[in-house]
């Protein structure tokens, strides 16, 4: 019996102590009309070797294509120590640190994480994490609507330069509370500054911008932040935390800095894993901390005066405040935060900066190699670590042909940005070598010439 320790003697003795005739008798309060005899649609159990074989086959099924997709999730080197430590049972199988004295490891780690995220984003306080970047963004919008004492507006001004997926998630999560997103148009891959003037005097709770924008180009964050503040809006900065080793942090944007920062934590040591689990980060200036959703760890002292850590400001949370809580969030992404904290520790500021700079250099090399091919041009001149390429023909068939040759060529923008024409978002992280980039350029060149890619079905697996 997998994972159940009872011997027949145990069962007999325990039933006797209860005064029940059988295990099934323990369910006698379930009305007979509701009782089922079993789950016929579910097959027999598998042993560990059997399930291992099944999963190994499935994990190998898709090969290991060479990936040039970014678009919100990025392949980076993860030091071996990160997940070896994070999956120690003491981290892996603990629960939320409600019993602080029995959870100092998790609590201190979260405090260190909060410190690192505060410093990376240039803001005072961080929470203990949200589910992912998109939900962190939605919660940041909610937080801004609650916190902006100068505005009664339930509208947030955002931009088409911000991740379409984040905007979609925010719409789904905010609709029930009647909060609306309004979008700035694009101009040269960024939020249009020309579109600001007509909006002056319109009441919005906040301006939400992403640095760099979803299309890879840096936003004019200083101008946008200052304009929003003159309009009485709060400013939400969505960031890639890895690039924050290189780019000015939200807390330093414009004259006063952004008020809230959030984003996807995945680049900090979290595997791509088909989309999750990742974690969202959320930081804010000091005055907004009581509007922050989610768990927060504080340092205090115990009865003997020793420093220790505990969950704090819990009066914001659902288990205390119920229908008046700042959010319904309970469980967050603790294990991912554990990994990210170890990752940031091993990389340090200089390591993160080097990874970010290498990603930029590799993407630049990729852009150079691909724009040598006929019919491909760079859409927007300035980019951070991903860039938009324009094609003279639809991108989808090219991506399909590349995939058949074991290359994932980028993210097709046709559905979400049809106004950009035939456009592809590409990314080469520090994991891509010069040879990888060359292979991509060769394969795409071959496809464009009408020959088949790589000449084999799959050049590596």
């Amino acid at each position, binding site marked *: 019996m997998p994972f*159940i320790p009872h011997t027949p003697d145990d069962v007999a003795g325990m039933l006797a102590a209860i005064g029940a005739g059988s295990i099934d008798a323990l369910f006698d309060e379930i009305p007979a009309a509701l009782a089922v005899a079993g789950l016929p649609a579910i097959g027999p*159990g598998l042993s560990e070797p059997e399930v291992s074989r099944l999963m190994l086959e499935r994990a190998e099924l898709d090969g290991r294509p060479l990936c040039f997709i970014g678009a919100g999730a990025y392949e980076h080197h993860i030091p071996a120590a990160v997940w070896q430590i994070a*999956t120690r049972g003491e981290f892996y199988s603990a629960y939320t640190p409600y019993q602080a004295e*029995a959870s100092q490891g998790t609590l201190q780690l979260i405090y260190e994480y909060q410190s*690192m995220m*505060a410093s990376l984003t240039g803001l005072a306080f961080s929470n203990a994490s949200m589910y992912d970047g998109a939900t962190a963004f939605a919660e940041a919008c909610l937080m801004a609507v609650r916190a902006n004492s100068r505005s009664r507006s339930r509208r947030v001004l955002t931009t088409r330069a911000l991740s379409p997926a984040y905007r979609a998630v925010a719409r789904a999560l905010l609709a029930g509370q009647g909060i609306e997103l309004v979008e700035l148009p694009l101009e040269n891959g960024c939020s249009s500054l020309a579109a600001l003037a007509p909006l002056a005097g319109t009441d919005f709770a906040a301006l939400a911008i992403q640095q760099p924008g979803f299309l890879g180009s840096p936003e004019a964050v200083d101008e946008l932040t200052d304009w929003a503040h003159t309009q009485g809006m709060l400013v939400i900065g969505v960031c890639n935390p890895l690039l924050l080793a290189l780019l000015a942090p939200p807390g330093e944007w414009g004259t006063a800095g952004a008020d809230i920062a959030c984003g996807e934590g995945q680049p900090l040591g979290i595997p791509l894993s088909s989309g999750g689990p990742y974690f969202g980060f959320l930081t804010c200036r000091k005055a907004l901390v009581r509007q922050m959703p989610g768990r927060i760890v504080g340092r205090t002292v115990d009865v003997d005066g020793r420093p220790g850590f505990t969950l704090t400001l819990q009066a914001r949370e659902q288990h205390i405040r119920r229908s008046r809580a700042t959010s319904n969030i309970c469980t*967050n992404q603790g294990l991912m935060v554990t990994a990210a904290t170890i990752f940031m*520790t091993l990389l*340090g500021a200089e390591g993160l900066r080097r990874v970010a700079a290498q990603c930029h250099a590799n993407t630049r090399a990729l852009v150079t190699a691909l724009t040598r091919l006929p019919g491909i041009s760079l859409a927007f001149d300035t980019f951070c670590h991903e860039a938009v390429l324009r094609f003279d023909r639809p991108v989808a068939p090219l991506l399909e042909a590349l995939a058949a040759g074991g290359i994932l060529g980028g993210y097709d923008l046709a559905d979400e940005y049809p106004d950009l024409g035939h456009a592809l978002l590409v990314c080469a992280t520090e994991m891509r070598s010069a040879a990888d980039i060359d292979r991509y350029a060769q394969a795409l060149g071959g496809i464009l010439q009408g020959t088949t890619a790589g000449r084999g079905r799959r050049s590596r697996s």
Partner: protein
Amino acid sequence: MSGEPLIFEHSRPGRRAPSHAPGACADPVGLPAGLLRTTPPLLPEVTELQAVRHYTRLSQLNFSIDTHFYPLGSCTMKYNPRAANSLAMLPGFLARHPLAPAGNGQGVLACLYELQEMLKAVTGMQGVSLTPMAGAQGEFAGVAMIRAYHAERGDLARRVIIVPDAAHGTNPATATMCGFEVREVPTDPQGDIDLEALRQAVGPDVAGIMLTNPSTLGVFERRITEVAAIVHAAGGLLYYDGANLNAILGRALPATMGFDVVHINLHKTFSTPHGGGGPGAGIVAVGERLEPYLPVPIVGERAGRFVWLTGQDRPRSIGRLSAFMGNTGILLRAYVYMRMLGAEGMRRVSGYAALNANYLMAKLGQAGFEVAYPQRRASHEFIVSLKGIARDTGVTAMDFAKALLDRGFHAPTTYFPLLVPECLLIEPTETESREVLDAFVAALVAIRDQARSDAAAVKAAPLTTPVRRLDDVRAARDLDLAWRGHGMPANGA
């Protein structure tokens, strides 16, 4: 024991773990200087050994399932099989980009598709979406679907969600997130919903009811069919909070009870790790009425290939709840666990969870503890009230919790549900042995004996943990949420 310093205190300028980053790299080309960072972030400067040693030491300051009995009521702290972790972390699964085409994901999609099918079987429901990333997000999805259902029928007057007074705090918080008002209904002395109060509470303004069954009081809601009839007759829908599904796995189906939508915490019933507070997974399952509104993406099958169904395929969906596809790696762990259990194993889960809970309840009752609902069967958990002991000795449920830590047991859930004074909500789970349960009973008896002879000693607990009781008031008053070393932002006011 002495505390472990902060990682920042191990840091020395110029110290590095250089093998993890590329060599020195030129600054980026073409980015405006004004957009670049001028002061580096304050991250530690340590070697790999220092990092490994520090975080290993921190791990050792935790209680966990792997090291301690962890009978935290309503959290289902059962053993997390190591195979589920190893197999979900196979390199092929970890390396796959979320935006890779479905053609490059048939392995993972096959697992997710079969997981959807298995979850239909354990709930009796017709449709499943795996994307919600925690129980609270599953609740959100469920209530948002109820909202979409009424809205599409033009039934816009339904602005209220009914929640029993014993519910998890996430239930009312979720109703608010979805734009509803909350109306509470009381529990009767037997632990069932007060049906008369429910009849009074329903009406044309009620969108639905959120229920946990077995309830947070640790008992099965015996008149659930009547509850469903009352709510349905008034035009409302029924939401099943699956927090306690472990108690009835393979014994009863939420669909048959009359529920329209279910969320399941995979990190409870299906043994994915709690991870120090997540990641979880709060999948939703629905009956026919709500099927069109399921959040996307969903895994579908076309001509023998697995595909993602998105908003384009499912235009009435409540939308997308995560940037990509929920907590996929957690879903894989649940899949492995469910395949290992099989149909028989699932029924054994609820059987032995009930055996352990009822045994523990019987032993504690025999030892003189006040069980909240002694005339009822325990589900997979039960409540002990320490009201009498607290009155006689001044030793509270909180003191018992701390004293248990000194005896090597994680504390049960305390002070929840709010209905029962000085309560411990105890959930042993099926993976604990009789010896552990007996030792736990002995520990509680010893603490009670000490409470009677030397209450101050119990109130001084814990003594053996890395820290003793913490000053929560100071923590909230003098906020110290980040290390204020050199270079930390002053961004205050």
